[in-house]
């Protein structure tokens, strides 16, 4: 599954009427795949709700940007607000879903996505920790494996945490996993991948698909 297919897979699970924040990077792609027949409200933490697509070239407005500092548009019916109000909206549990990238997710739903922990790294956190604790459901969207073939789904994160037990669901290029008190439950897998193979690649115990969810 390539990045666009992964974005489309996440988009499929976002229902009409949902208030959603798409994190910087890979999650941004989800916007391109939201079904056109659903009204979905995108939030950007710098102070807008009802974010629309990128403007036509030449129509960029330096006062209308998203959290990634890219030019965006506002849908008819959208609204602006200040930063403290915007983060209150996030922290207060008003967003239905946020979609975040990650370095690692643990079986308990711990998230690491802000800091490699390298001794010479200059840290930068932005709104990652607020999104991790604030949304009703936190979806992580990432490659299943690192470039060197290690699982990004781990028993315990080795990178510094962004939030504790905050992830609800993990979307990777191989599978969709739900974080449950019993462990990670498989919700979906790509065609042709067996459970044994997925478990081997992942390196942590996985609970099998219970029944079709739709």
């Amino acid at each position, binding site marked *: 599954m390539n990045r666009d297919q992964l974005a489309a897979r996440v988009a499929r699970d976002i229902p009409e009427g949902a208030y959603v924040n798409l994190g910087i990077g890979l999650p941004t792609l989800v916007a391109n795949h939201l079904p056109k027949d659903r*009204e979905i409200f995108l939030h950007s933490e710098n102070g807008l*709700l009802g974010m629309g697509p990128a403007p036509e070239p030449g129509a960029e407005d330096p006062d209308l940007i998203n959290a990634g500092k890219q030019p965006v548009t506002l849908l008819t019916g959208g*609204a602006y607000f200040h930063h403290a109000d915007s983060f209150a909206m996030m922290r207060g549990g008003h967003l239905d879903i946020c979609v975040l990238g990650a370095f690692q997710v643990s079986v308990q739903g711990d998230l690491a996505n802000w800091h490699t922990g390298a001794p010479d790294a200059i840290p930068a956190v932005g709104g990652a920790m607020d999104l991790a604790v604030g949304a009703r459901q936190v979806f992580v969207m990432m490659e299943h494996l690192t470039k060197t073939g290690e699982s990004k789904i781990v028993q315990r994160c080795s990178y510094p945490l962004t939030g504790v037990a905050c992830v609800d669901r993990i979307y990777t290029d191989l599978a969709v996993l739900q974080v449950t008190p019993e462990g990670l439950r498989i919700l979906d897998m790509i065609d042709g991948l067996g459970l044994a193979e997925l478990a081997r690649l992942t390196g942590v115990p996985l609970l099998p698909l219970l029944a079709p969810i739709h």
Partner: protein
Amino acid sequence: MISKIVPSPEAALAGVPDGSTIMIGGFGGAGQPAQLIDALIDQGARDLVIVNNNAGNGETGLAALLKARRVRRIICSFPRQADSQVFDALYRSGEIELELVPQGNLSERIRAAAAGIGAFFTPTGYGTLLAEGKETRMIDGRGHVLEYPLRADYALIKALRADRWGNLVYRKTGRNFGPTMAAAAACAIAQVRDVVELGELDPEVIVTPGIYVQRVVAVGSAA
């Protein structure tokens, strides 16, 4: 297509269970959602906890809800007024519980619930009867009281205009508790004078974004 508009105050109050905590906006007559309160009376839920600045005036609105013995407990800042006789009688006979909260702490506790703040230290009320039994702390040489968020199952508020996404604007001092109560309630219900087309409310001017509003009912200029 999302529309939060419901056809009537009755529809707006549908499904409120007994035992609900309900915030009711308004300060004096300004911002008071009179039609929604009447619909709550008709709806029949009982054993309610009500959050409002006052505890009813005269014999109508919140006072009528109290008189119908539907309220177990009221959380407010200023219950006693010249015409709060319904509350006064229930209180004196022990038929209603009162939690008295300084007005700014009431507002800030509602705001904390809306904003996901777990608790906050406030100087208001420190050293007074209303801080008795509460955790206190000196911060920068000043006494503070620890106060907790105030959440609700429902908020009944009044605004001037809404669109189908639930965006709201208010009118003058009628704004008062509306924006914070809407955001602190699981289900915020707004009565408005007019419902307008999406886009008619300037995005710079929307006070309550639709994310905080679940149901809207237009009541016309009666509101």
